[in-house]
């Protein structure tokens, strides 16, 4: 039951994001367009590039979807609306999302095309940049909650959301999450203007449908993680807990989509340099500030 509800919420959110994406591209709000698009993908040819690494090519979209859903599975929508409330939930989110990298590299390498391969390796560089900015802010969140259990992390924010308690961590995590979802302005691996679609480029038909669903799901999962770690999860007045979770998640997801609309793509060199020279010291500073706050403020 819980599984069905969470999966439905995930699908519904992905659909909403697809509608918003369409609105940003065409200026029209068409609720049916994603459904038609999905259906049309089923009818189209799904081309397999000649002599590729077929295993990688086939596995990549499936792996991406699987890890996005697994990440969501350990994030709570309400105190008891969670598929698996693991003892190391916060770490598990990280672990699942680390395989986004594997999927992207596979998708890039598989078809034996230059654009895709460059895109895949670019994403590895991107991971090296953003990864610490996912991991370190979560550590600070765990410090406050004294637990890696995601429901406990939400519980620890009952009085004060983490976005207020550790705003620095939130900003770093939010940026890193966008980089993880490789959406604009961090769409280096799938850049249309630089790589003609990059890692996405060789997928057509039903495989493309799976890939697109996976990428949208990934955004929802990351938005949900942001909600759980920083926006107080299900906490909120009046509305039922699941509604608050959903509203916050969708708001974060839509904001991630919108930000990319108004920004040019970041330079790879800048991304790496800023993340390491600025981001990691700030993340460490965040840990120290939170550490002091915990000791000073009872």
């Amino acid at each position: 039951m819980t599984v069905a509800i969470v999966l439905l919420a995930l699908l519904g959110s992905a659909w909403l994001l697809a509608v918003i994406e369409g609105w940003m591209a065409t200026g029209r709000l068409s609720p049916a367009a994603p459904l038609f698009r999905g259906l049309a993908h089923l009818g189209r040819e799904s081309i397999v590039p000649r002599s590729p690494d077929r295993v990688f090519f086939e596995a990549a979209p499936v792996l991406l979807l699987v890890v996005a859903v697994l990440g969501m599975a350990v994030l709570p929508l309400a105190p008891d609306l969670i598929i698996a409330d693991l003892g190391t939930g916060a770490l598990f989110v990280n672990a699942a999302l680390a395989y986004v990298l594997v999927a992207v590299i596979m998708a890039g390498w598989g078809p034996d095309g230059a654009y895709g391969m460059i895109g895949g390796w670019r994403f590895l560089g991107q991971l090296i940049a953003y990864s610490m900015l996912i991991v370190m802010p979560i550590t600070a969140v765990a410090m406050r909650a004294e637990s890696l259990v995601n429901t406990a992390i939400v519980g620890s924010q009952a009085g004060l959301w983490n976005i207020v308690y550790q705003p620095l961590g939130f900003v770093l995590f939010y940026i890193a999450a966008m980089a993880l979802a490789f959406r604009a302005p961090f769409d280096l691996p799938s850049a249309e203007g630089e790589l003609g679609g990059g890692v996405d480029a060789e997928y057509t038909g039903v495989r493309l449908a799976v890939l697109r669903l996976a990428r949208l799901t990934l955004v929802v999962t990351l938005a949900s993680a942001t909600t759980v770690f920083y926006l107080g999860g299900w906490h909120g007045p009046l509305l039922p807990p699941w509604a608050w979770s959903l509203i916050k998640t969708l708001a974060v997801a839509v904001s991630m989509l919108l930000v990319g609309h108004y920004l040019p793509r970041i330079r790879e060199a800048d991304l790496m340099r800023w993340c390491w020279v600025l981001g990691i010291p700030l993340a460490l500073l965040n840990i120290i500030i939170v550490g002091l706050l915990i000791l000073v403020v009872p």
Partner: protein
Amino acid sequence: MYAQAFFVAVFGLAAIGFGVVVFRTSSMMRSALALLFSMTAVGCLFLAMQTEFLGVLQIMMMATEMSIMAIFMVMFMMDPGGLGGMDMSHQKRFSIGAGVSAAVVAIAVALLSDWGPAAEQVVDAEAQTRALGMELLGRSMMIFETAGITILTAMIAATAVAIPVQNLSSKDDKEASE
């Protein structure tokens, strides 16, 4: 209990299976990612044995570390796509010998050690993590800090070996002009 033993066996065999693929393919990418999934299977094995923190940590870290290994393999090995079907192995007799003897030793250790009574009840994952933390900050603090020094040494060594000595001032000028 039997289900647990079954999954331990499945993931163990998966780890070995992927491990075999590492050496049976001529593509560096396949080889690297097979090693990755072998490690992932080991992580799942840990999960099946209810050591959650260790398992999840293994699953998480191997994804990134093995991918970085993959790029280094693609950088430095001939024909990383395995297009020529070249056999990249060498010193076969020696390595087979070393492999077999290591396996024999490992199996011998596994069979001959006294593992003590099987744990009937395992504390839950949260308590495990907590216990690990207390251990790190208590008895094993020196190990913990030594690990830090080891990592520092590794960082310095890697940087010193890999980063070409360049005229830093000219590079800085270039960056300043950008």
